[in-house]
């Protein structure tokens, strides 16, 4: 099971990003566990500078704005 984290202080875009991740996993038939990271200190540890950011199995794959759906499908399937 893949572990996906969505980093962001909790703005609307972060929620949209979480939904996109869930949709992409459902579409690909991949089992994942999604968690939101909203604590600033926690977010800062990942070394990004913009949110929402997406971390798949500990690897930062995306930072800033919403990801492209096709990229997301790729990260989840990889």
């Amino acid at each position, binding site marked *: 099971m893949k572990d996906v984290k969505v980093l962001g202080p909790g703005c609307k*875009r972060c929620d949209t990003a979480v939904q996109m991740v869930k949709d992409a996993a459902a579409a690909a038939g991949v089992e994942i566990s999604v968690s939101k990271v909203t604590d600033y*200190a926690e977010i800062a540890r990942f070394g990004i500078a913009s949110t929402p950011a997406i971390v798949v199995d500990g690897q930062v794959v995306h930072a800033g704005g919403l990801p492209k759906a096709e990229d997301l499908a790729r990260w989840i399937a990889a």
Partner: protein
Amino acid sequence: MKGVVAVQREPSALPWIGGMAAAVVVWVLLYSQLIPFSEWLVSLLPVERHSHLGESIAFFFYDVPKVLLLLTLVVFAMGVVRSYFSPERTRALLAGRRVGVGNAMAASLGIVTPFCSCSAVPLFIGFVSAGVPLGVTFSFLIAAPMVNEVALGLLFALLGWKVALTYLGFGLAIAIVAGWVIGRLKLEGWLEPWVLKIHAGAADLPDTTTSWPDRVRAGLEAVREIVGRVWYWIIAGIAAGALIHGYAPEELLASIMGKDAWWSVPAAVVIGIPMYSNAAGIIPVVEALLGKGAALGTVLAFMMSVIALSLPEMIILRKVLSVKLIAVFVAVVGSGILAVGFLFNLLFA
């Protein structure tokens, strides 16, 4: 680097080029019909064209479509430009820069780097913990909200390119000088203690390819999001402006906000700092005030302090900055705006 290989895809550019050309033609046609359109609308209404009400209505129906058209164009162009930048790339460019050059680069990058106010704190920590000097980070954080596409697009639409460019120049100057001053004061110790403990460095992001259709899409997305968010502010602002245009007595405004009233610049800054609005609501009002004899420097100082400094922003930044540091930040930026207000009044007398 554990990069993920981008999927190769070669979308045909032809439909995009055709679509863009068609959009430009429609845009130019609409823009050329603005005055006939507003005159025609007013002629349909049972009001005297040259009455106060007639003047206000004609002003409203001319300004709303004009501003929305120009804003759409500017926001689209900026959306395309921004697809070349990201906060992470900007950070890499700024890390370890010397004060001075670094401040100038940070302020300029602040204009073109996509930045949403809800990620101000992650951005601040991300910059500082990856080795961007504090003063350079501040230059970025001051320029990013102040010199934005909505402010520039509206100033260009309503007051002309000279004012828009002067605003751009002074906005950059404030961001550079204020960041430099904060850097020289060496206030790193005034950050919240937990911020200093983070030494995350910079994450390695996988490379992604961005094609031309992607960039056009980014521009369209920016229009949908930004124009979609601010259009009602613009209509409200222009309605307020139209009332001022039709009804406000000239002598009154000239005496309160005219350039002879030197105290009006500091008063405008002090009133503007705690206020929070976006450029969209305030610039149409600014235009109408100017038409009634208010001095350009005074209204621009008011506008800058409303946009660049606001209470909600300070509350967000309080998570990473001590109250002392926020006070220094407000004082330095506020003095810069004050100076610009006086300078503008001198230059555009």
